[in-house]
């Protein structure tokens, strides 16, 4: 058996299924439901076994057309930067507010992806978010939490 990335992913899925199965067995059901033909843990238990079965087969059986991804062609730096920017965006959106965090998220994302035309970066961030917010909050009356704009007095 030749080990490749798909086999490793399948092994991880096997471990996940085993953990899922273990957790499914730990689900506390009502005493009167313990011996019932179906209770809250019946379906998850079957799922756990199914996951182990399919991933087990994938690990054991040979791959006809193994897929290998050449890491030299992958843009890890940009992707990681973008994911980190999203995490920071997620962390600040409630505290800082929608307008500033979204605008900064867009500015940094454009920059990390290689955009250097500042005129477009600015147009498609702050004014774009302002219009979007107006459409949502002003026109469609969708609530948007923005402590900063509220503090300044722009939002009610």
């Amino acid at each position: 058996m030749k080990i490749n990335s798909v086999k490793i992913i399948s092994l991880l899925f096997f471990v996940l299924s085993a953990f899922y199965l273990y957790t499914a067995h730990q689900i506390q059901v009502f005493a009167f439901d313990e011996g019932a033909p179906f209770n809250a843990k019946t379906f998850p238990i079957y799922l756990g076994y199914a996951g182990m079965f399919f991933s087990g087969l994938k690990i054991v059986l040979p791959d006809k057309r193994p897929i290998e991804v050449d890491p030299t062609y992958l843009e890890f730096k940009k992707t990681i930067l973008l994911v980190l920017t999203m995490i920071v965006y997620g962390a600040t959106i409630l505290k800082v507010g929608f307008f500033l965090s979204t605008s900064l998220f867009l500015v940094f994302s454009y920059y990390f992806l290689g955009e250097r035309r500042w005129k477009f970066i600015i147009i498609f961030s702050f004014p774009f978010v302002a219009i979007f917010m107006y459409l949502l909050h002003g026109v469609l009356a969708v609530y948007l939490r923005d402590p900063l704009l509220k503090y300044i007095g722009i939002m009610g």
Partner: protein
Amino acid sequence: MIEGIIIGLQTALSFQNLMMVMIGCFAGTIIGMLPGLGPMTAIALMIPITYGFDPATGLILMAGVYYGAVFGGSTSSILINAPGVPGTVATSFDGYPMAQQGKAGKALAIAAYSSFAGGTISAIFLLIAAPSLSKVSLSFRSPDYFGLMILGLTAVAAFSSKGNFLKAMMMCVLGLMLASVGQDTLSDIPRFTFNTMNLSDGISFVLVVMATFAMSEALTIIIKGNDPSKAAKQISLTDLGSIKVNKEETKQMAATIPRSSILGFIIGVLPGAGATIASFLAYGMERNFVKSEEKEKFGKGSVQGLSAPETANNAACSGSFVPLLTLGIPGSGTTAVMLGALLGFGIQPGPRLYETNPEIFWSVIMSMYIGMVVLLILNLPLIPYIARILAVPRTFLIPMILFFSVTGIYLMSFNNFDIYLMIGIAVVATILRLYDFPMPPLILAFVLGGLMEENLRRSLLISDGSWSFLYDRPLTLCIMSAILLIIGWQIYQSFIKKD
């Protein structure tokens, strides 16, 4: 039925809904044209917007987006040989060579006419077949539904996996696992919540679909480093040529369209098959039907080679609404997304929908046809202008997709945890995509998870814990046999057949 059609027409032709079809078709065409973004992503992006409307309007908007995105996928297939969706891969076989010969305008026009004709014929089939199918489906019981759901999952896994049946089945199980998170529907017992309140309501459908489609597709484009804007720059709008189709070409299309429509509709009705299989089968079938000199032109810019997959792919789109509306079982990943949206509106598709919400049932069917007409009127004159959107640099496009995804979740929950969870699922989905793990089975399983458990619960309780319900009724037995046949065929294809 006539009364229903009138109700549907009244709803679909109201000013607001007509505007929705137009906006949907336009937005769908633009999103569908962008490489990597298909109808499923387009509909997913629309879901948060539709929650502000009444169910009929929301669904009409989504139907417009669906058809628009399918046509948009064909546009990028023809212009830059970059199918936006798997369903338009076969379109590029002859569409792209035509574009290279300076007949891009004609190729786009043929695609538009064929899509319209395929959609029209299948809309008529849908009109006739849907009500009768809904009556037949009333005889379905819990074991049959449970069997049908497994059949749907197995079929999607078999057809969408491109020879990776086990990978697709793993994705099905992962989707079902994600669906099982949260409180049990009957007993309210928390499952897999790890003592956090954030998971007690389960994982939101919009979160999963945004993470696995819109977000992970954006991340995949970045990590793979392909640049759609570079490819788009290769198109010169002056090379589009005339969009007029001559008599000879019309004659060729007239022969191709009826047979491809019938095939597309039938394939679309089958759970799991969908537009991709329909377009490939129609291309293959057409190649066998044409004369030997025309056969030589296939792959080099044949009119019939372009018309057949385009017709079938649109006919299959309409066909896939039959199991969704009448049985509540989505036939494809896209209709699975629509099922999720329907459930979000508090509507349970199935045999009762025809009786309880006729205005929704008929207005969706009617708006699909109106969508086709709008699509034709909108797209033909706009072809040269629509093509310009392909030149939007990915440096702007990708952040916008990520922004819409995060905002969609933020507006739903106002919760940081959901955003982190979405990012986590998107990262895992991106890694899985790199190794060809298909996403449609995951989303279909996620949508069907709750219904599947519910039907298994009823079946097991009725049969007092015995699994004999799987073969007690002839209908269930037939469904189970079909499942076994698909699995057997896949095992044969994957491990026994030499090539």
